[in-house]
């Protein structure tokens, strides 16, 4: 008699490959084993598809059902779910799409996917109380350059060569239908997504603000982050940049 693990392994094999025979394991009772397994195969596929559709509604709209379903099937074969919580199933979809689309005219789908994953992360991230900026007054100016900041758990930054925010907004359920056609080469975008009071705020950042925040989010010291900002815009007023990203609530704590 097959063990529990052998039974489950054989079932998984049959789900993946309809020629994998599990006839001997399954009671026929008027319907062949393969047709019984096919019901589960379909359920598993539908469950995964609807999870991905819920996570990536804009990519699904842009790509159309046929394309989206095809790519999700390939994605699922390469990146099967690794959790009992299907909400995580789409985690690798943006990088999968880059692999499929890089350099082609649909490359921006991958950027939109990255944006939508960031949006999902922001929706469910932890709360955090706001930053007490006055505490910075106790730091001696000679230590400013070595300050390291903790950033808000519900803040993400997404930079792209495409107008991501415009694309995303045009595909929201309540957006006006007869909007102007989107111009994909209207220039790069750098969008901050941050949750406040259960609402996700989206802001376009300038190049210097984005570079500064990106560096701080990755754990760089303030000195290095300032260098990053100046590297993209030598004329940037970095004090003003810092003040803007503080007032956006992106920084929540600091240490030396």
């Amino acid at each position: 008699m097959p063990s529990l693990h052998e039974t489950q392994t054989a079932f998984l094999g049959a789900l993946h490959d309809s020629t994998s025979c599990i006839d001997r394991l399954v009671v026929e009772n008027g319907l062949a084993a393969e047709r019984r397994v096919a019901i589960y195969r379909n359920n598993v596929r539908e469950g995964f598809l609807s999870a991905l559709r819920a996570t990536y509604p804009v990519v699904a709209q842009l790509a159309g059902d046929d394309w989206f379903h095809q790519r999700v099937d390939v994605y699922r074969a390469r990146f099967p779910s690794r959790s009992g919580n299907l909400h995580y199933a789409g985690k690798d979809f943006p990088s999968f799409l880059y692999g499929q689309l890089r350099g082609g005219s649909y490359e921006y789908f991958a950027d939109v996917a990255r944006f939508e994953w960031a949006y999902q992360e922001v929706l469910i991230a932890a709360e955090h109380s706001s930053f007490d900026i006055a505490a910075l007054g106790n730091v001696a100016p000679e230590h400013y350059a070595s300050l390291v900041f903790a950033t808000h758990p519900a803040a993400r930054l997404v930079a792209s060569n495409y107008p991501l925010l415009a694309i995303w907004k045009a595909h929201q359920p309540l957006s006006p239908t007869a909007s102007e056609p989107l111009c994909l080469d209207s220039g790069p975008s750098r969008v901050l997504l941050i949750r406040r009071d259960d609402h996700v705020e989206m802001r376009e950042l300038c190049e210097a603000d984005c570079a500064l925040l990106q560096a701080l989010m990755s754990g760089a010291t303030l000195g290095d982050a300032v260098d990053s900002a100046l590297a993209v815009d030598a004329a940037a007023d970095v004090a003003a940049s810092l003040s803007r990203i503080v007032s956006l609530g992106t920084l929540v704590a600091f240490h030396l």
Partner: protein
Amino acid sequence: MSPTTDNVVRPRGPMPVRTGIGLRAQHHESLLHERPQIGWLEAHSENYFADGGAQIDYLMALRALYPLSLHGVGLSLGSTDPLDAEHLWRLKRLMHLSEPGFVSEHLSWGSVDGEWLNDLLPMPYTEEALAHMIRRVGEVQDYLGRQILIENVSSYLEFTSSALREWEFLAALAIESGCGLLLDVNNVYVSSRNHSFDPRVYLSHIPSTYVQEIHLAGHTVKRHADHEIVIDTHAAPVCDRVWDLYELALTHVGPTPTLIEWDADIPALSILAAEAEHADRYLERTRAIAA
């Protein structure tokens, strides 16, 4: 429907012997504003595993208005893979936060060697599988520090290795592990059609004192040229045959908190509330007969 706060605001305590509905995100707002007189709400645990954000806030706002139960779909109790520690931790955190009347999971498996199917797959009803489920339910109950309820699932195949019937397996699991049972009457019906057994026999073998909750839902019949199969879609009203079976189940287990599940093609809240009210009438009848 007018807000009748007096009737729906309840302290946190045992689940009322009334009918509740499955909590779906599209009804969060209308539940808060319309406050229909349904008995309680059941949330899919995984939908509220977030660290923060609007979904948790809705759950807690609704928790102040209705008794709550947490129903998990992702623990994969029947799998031979180790239990997912993070999943359990998130469940325990949510449990402490929302103080549910029931915490439930399924008699099923959903993963092999780290690959998840995220479906409620049927178990072979062997002695090995029974010992495994008893151990796993015990692990979860020990970790959570409370009893959980285990629900029978709909199935589309049976394994030739099964030495026990599903009802025997469930009864032994409850008695040996100390878990409660969540009797899904629609699932009994669906499986009885798919596997040609008498659903009344199934019900009569369920140890009634272990049944703490009942589920009702709609299903879909798929007809092929040579065969038909009943699929547990949760996308339709409860059918007459399942209502009849529910009535029979109530005579067997007594008045029991009941839930209307409707998870796909989800209708307006008022339709769900009407289904719940219909089930409440069965509960009242059973109470009247018992009295």
